[in-house]
C-alpha cells in the first residue's frame, strides 16, 4: 500500500502500477472495511472511468500534478451532480448543482474523487457519533471513536481506503480525528482555501483541510487548493507559496518555539500525552531550537468563546434548510409554519438542534451583548495575543487532544464532549494554521497527536518543520 503520492507517481512513471489498479485496490479495501462506515457513498464506476482517463494522460505526459492521487471528500463538499448531505436527513437525496472550488482545483490536476465520507451532522461533533448514517469506527480499535467531525475522512486515510481525504476543521474537526487515528491532519490559515461549495457550519471558523500519511502530500494538495477565488470574498488574495520547495530544508537550531504552560498543566490532560509532549520539547531543545514557555491565561475561555460564536453563525447558516426549496420536507406538514417546524424537527439530529437553539439564544435581543458581543471581544483579544506571540516565535506547540480516542457513548455530557476541543479551537479562533502529527503512541495502544500552530499564511514553514518532526520523532 502506498503512503505517499511521490511513491505512487514514481511507480506510475515506471509503469509498475496504473491509476486503474490503484483505484481497484482502494475499492477492494473499501469493500473489506465496510464495517468502518467511513464512506457514505462510493463512486466506484466513475473513479474507474477517471482512472482510465488519467492513465491515458500519463502515457502522453499530459497528466496533472495529482495524477495517481485517489481522494475522498467529506460529505460537506459540493460536487456537481453528486449527492451531498452534511450527514443529515434534512439534505436526504440532495444533489449539488455545482462543484466546490477546492474539489474543482483537485479535479483540474487529475485527482480521482472516489466517494464522499461520513462525518458528524453539519460537522458538529467530536466523535462522529452525530451522523445520520451512523458511527464511523476507529480502524485501530473498533470500540473507539475516530474523532470528529471528520471521522470518515480520518478513517479512510487511516485504513488506506484512499490516499488522502478532504475535510473541514471548524474547531478541530481535522486535527482531533488525526490525533485519534494516528495520521497527519492539517487546517490551513482561515481564508487560504476558498469555502465556496463547503456547506457552512460556522463561516468565520470553517476551513477546508487535508488528511494524509505524509506531510509532503499535505503540502502539495493544499498548495493546489489554496489561493484567491472570485466566489469567496473571505478567501485571501495572498500569493500561494511553493510548499514543497523547502520542505526538506528545516534548520531546527534556528527555530523559536513556544509552548503554553496552561495547555501542558491542564487538569484534563492524559499523563502519557503530557510526558510525550515534554519529551519532544526536550529533544527540540537538544537539537538547538529555542524552546520557551509563553504565558497564555485564556485557555479556559476558548471553548465557551468558540461555542457561543460558532453556534450563533450556525443558527443562521442552517436557516436555509427549511423544506421549501430542496432536501427533506416533512410529509406531516400542512402549512408554511408546520413545514418549518416539522421539517426542521424531523430533519435535524439532536446535536444540531442543540446548537441551533444555543446560537439563536446568544443572538437574541437582551442576551446578545452578554454572549455574542463578549465572545467577539474574547476572540479579538486572543487573536491579538497570538499575533504578538508570533512576533517572537515561529511556532506554538501543544498536544492535539487531552486524551486518546474514547469509546462510543463514553461522553454523554455535551460539555465534556465540547472540552475535548480545548487544544484545537485556539487555531480556529485566531484563524491561524494548525497541524496534528502522529508523534505519540499510548500504552493503551492508541495513537495521539502533537500539534503545531504558526502565524497566518506561514504554511510553508509549518510544513517544513512538520516534515522534520515526522522524520525525527515519528512513533512508527
Amino acid at each position: 500500500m502506498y503512503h505517499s503520492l511521490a511513491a505512487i507517481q514514481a511507480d506510475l512513471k515506471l509503469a509498475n502500477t496504473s491509476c486503474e489498479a490503484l483505484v481497484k485496490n482502494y475499492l477492494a479495501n473499501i469493500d473489506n472495511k465496510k464495517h468502518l462506515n467511513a464512506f457514505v457513498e462510493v463512486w466506484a464506476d466513475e473513479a474507474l472511468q477517471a482512472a482510465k482517463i488519467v492513465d491515458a494522460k500519463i502515457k502522453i505526459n499530459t497528466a496533472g500534478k495529482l495524477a495517481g492521487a485517489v481522494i475522498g471528500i467529506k460529505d460537506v463538499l459540493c460536487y456537481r451532480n453528486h449527492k451531498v448531505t452534511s450527514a443529515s436527513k434534512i439534505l436526504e437525496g440532495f444533489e449539488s448543482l455545482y462543484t466546490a472550488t477546492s474539489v474543482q482545483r483537485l479535479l483540474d490536476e487529475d485527482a480521482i474523487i472516489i466517494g464522499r465520507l461520513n462525518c458528524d451532522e453539519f460537522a458538529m461533533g467530536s466523535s462522529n457519533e452525530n451522523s445520520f448514517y451512523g458511527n464511523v469506527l476507529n480502524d485501530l480499535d473498533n470500540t473507539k471513536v475516530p474523532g470528529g467531525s471528520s471521522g470518515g475522512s480520518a478513517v479512510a486515510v487511516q485504513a488506506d481506503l484512499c490516499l488522502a481525504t478532504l475535510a473541514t476543521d471548524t474547531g478541530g474537526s481535522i486535527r482531533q480525528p488525526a490525533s485519534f487515528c494516528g495520521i497527519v491532519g492539517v487546517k490551513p490559515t482561515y481564508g487560504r482555501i476558498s469555502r465556496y461549495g463547503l456547506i457552512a457550519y460556522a463561516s468565520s471558523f470553517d476551513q477546508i483541510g487535508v488528511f494524509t500519511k505524509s506531510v509532503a502530500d499535505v503540502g502539495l494538495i493544499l498548495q493546489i487548493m489554496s489561493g484567491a477565488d472570485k466566489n469567496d470574498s473571505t478567501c485571501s488574495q495572498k500569493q500561494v507559496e511553493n510548499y514543497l520547495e523547502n520542505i526538506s530544508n528545516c534548520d531546527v537550531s534556528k527555530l523559536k518555539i513556544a509552548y503554553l504552560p496552561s495547555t501542558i498543566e491542564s487538569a484534563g490532560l492524559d499523563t502519557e500525552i503530557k510526558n510525550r509532549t515534554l519529551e519532544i520539547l526536550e529533544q527540540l531543545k537538544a537539537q538547538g531550537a529555542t524552546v520557551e514557555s509563553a504565558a497564555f491565561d485564556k485557555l479556559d475561555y476558548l471553548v465557551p468563546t468558540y461555542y457561543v460564536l460558532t453556534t450563533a453563525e450556525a443558527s443562521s447558516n442552517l436557516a436555509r434548510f427549511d423544506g421549501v426549496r430542496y432536501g427533506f420536507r416533512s410529509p406531516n406538514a400542512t402549512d408554511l409554519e408546520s413545514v418549518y417546524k416539522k421539517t426542521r424537527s424531523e430533519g435535524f439530529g439532536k446535536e444540531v438542534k442543540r446548537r441551533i437553539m444555543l446560537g439563536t439564544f446568544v443572538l437574541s435581543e437582551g442576551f446578545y451583548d452578554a454572549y455574542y458581543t463578549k465572545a467577539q471581544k474574547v476572540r479579538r483579544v486572543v487573536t491579538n495575543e497570538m499575533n504578538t506571540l508570533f512576533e517572537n516565535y515561529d511556532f506554538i506547540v501543544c498536544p492535539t487532544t487531552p486524551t486518546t480516542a474514547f469509546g462510543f457513548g463514553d461522553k454523554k455530557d455535551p460539555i465534556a464532549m465540547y472540552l475535548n476541543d480545548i487544544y484545537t479551537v485556539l487555531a480556529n479562533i485566531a484563524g491561524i494554521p494548525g497541524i496534528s502529527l502522529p508523534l505519540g503512541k499510548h500504552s493503551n495502544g492508541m495513537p495521539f497527536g502533537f500539534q503545531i500552530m504558526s502565524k497566518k499564511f506561514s504554511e510553508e514553514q509549518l510544513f517544513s518543520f512538520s516534515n522534520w518532526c515526522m522524520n525525527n520523532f515519528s512513533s512508527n
Partner: protein
Amino acid sequence: MDKSIIDKYEMVIGLEVHAQLQTNSKAYCADGTEFGLSPNVQVSPISLGHPGTLPVMNERSLVYAIKMGIATNCTINKYNAFARKNYFYADLPKGYQITQHTTPICTDGKIKIKVNGEEKYIGITRIHLEEDAGKSIHDIDPFNSLIDLNRAGVPLIEIVSEPDLRSADDAYEYLTYIRKLVRYLDICDGNMEEGSLRCDCNISVRLKGAEKFGTKVEVKNMNSIRNVKRAIEYEMYRQIEMVEKGEWIEMQTRSFNAADGSTFDMRSKEAANDYRYFPEPDLPPVILTDEFIAEAKAEMPALPEELINRFKTEFGLSEYDANVLADEKEIAHYYLQLISFQKNYKSAANWLMVSIKGYLNEKAISISEFPVEAKKISELIDAIDGNKISNTVASQKIFPALIENPTANILDLAKELNVLQESDASAIEELVKQAIAKYPEKVTEYKNGKTSLQGLFVGEVMKLSKGKAEPKIVNQLVNKHLSE
C-alpha cells in the same frame, strides 16, 4: 370630524423608502435583474440559497447608493460592514437577508421640498444597502402558494427619513422628490406599481406643541404616491379619533386597502420580531476609497435643483417653467440640447412644454421616443423668428408634418404645405385691397372711430393668404389703407 378638533393635532411622519437598484446583476451574485420574466429564470445556486454558496458584493450597487447619498446631502461612510437579518419566510431563500445594520453607507442628509409654496427641509437619517426577497404568490393556485425567486437578491437601498414630515402633503412632496432623484440618477425606475419603489410610513399624531411623539403605526402596501397620501390621511382621522376617545394607540403594522382607502392591522403578533442581527461572516467589510466615491460622483448628472437654478438664472425662465422642465430628467436634457442650438430660450421652453409635451401625453410616450431631434425644433423656432412662417402655422401644420417626416427641411415642408409666410408687401397689399373692398360698410364704421375693426380686416387678409401673410406687414398695410 370637526376641523377644530383636527387642528389641535399635528402629525409626525417618517418614511422608509425601498428603491430597487437597476444594476445588471443581483446584489451578491451574477444573476440578472430584469423585471417581468417568467418565474424563477433569474436564479442560480447562490440566489436559491443552495448549501455551500457565498455572497460576493456587486460594486455597482455601492456606486448607486453613493450617488443617492450625495444627491440627498448625506455623509458617505467609508467603512461598510454587512449584517444578517434573520427571519423565516418562504420567499427568503437563505433564511436571512444581507443588509447593513450599524454601518449604513450614507447618513445624516437632508432634502428640500416645497409644500403649498412653502419650502422645508426633511432630514435623511440613513441610506443603507440590502437585498430584496422573492415573491410569494397566493392567488394563482387554489391549494398552494407559489414562489418566484427572480427578485431574490436584487439590490435595494432603503432611504430612511427623519420624522420631519407633518402632513400627507409633506409626504407626497417628499416621495415625489425621492422618486425624481432616483430617476435622475438612473439608479431605480421609481415604479411604485411594479414595486421597484416601495414606501412604508411611520405615522403618529400628537397635540400641537407636545414634545413627545405619539405611538407610531407602520403602514405598508401603498402602490402609488397618491395612495401613500390617502393612507396617511386615513391614519390621521383614525388616530385622532382614538386619542379623542381616550383610547391607546397600539404599536402595530397596518396594511393599506386601496379599494376603500382604509388601513387594517396586519400582524401585531409579529411586530416584536427579533431579527438577531449579527455581522455577515461571509462578506468582509467594504472600505470605500476617496477615489471610488469621487468616481461615483463624477458619473452623476446635474440634479433637478441645480437645473432649475440654471434655467432661471442663465436662461431667464420663470420659476414655473424651470420646474416643469426639470421635472423629468429626459425633458430637461432635451431642453439643454435644444438650447445648445437656440438662443430663444423662452420660445424653446414653450415649444417643449406645450407642443412636444402635448404630443407625448397624447401618445403616452416618453421624450426618448419622440422622433424629432432637438436641432430640428431649433430650426423651426428659427423659421418663426425669421418670419418665414407664423407661429400658428408652425404648431398646427409644420410640427405635425415634422413628426411624420422628422428629417425634412423646415422651409421645404412649408413650401410643400404652401404655408411659407408671405412677406412680399405688394402681394399682401393686393389682399388688403380685396379685404377692404369686401366690407365697405365696416370701413365707414372704422373711419367713424371704431378702430377695433382693424382685427377683422387683418383676419380677412390672413384668411385670403391661407395664413401665410406675415402678420406684422398685414397690420401695417391694413392700417395704412384704412387711414387713407
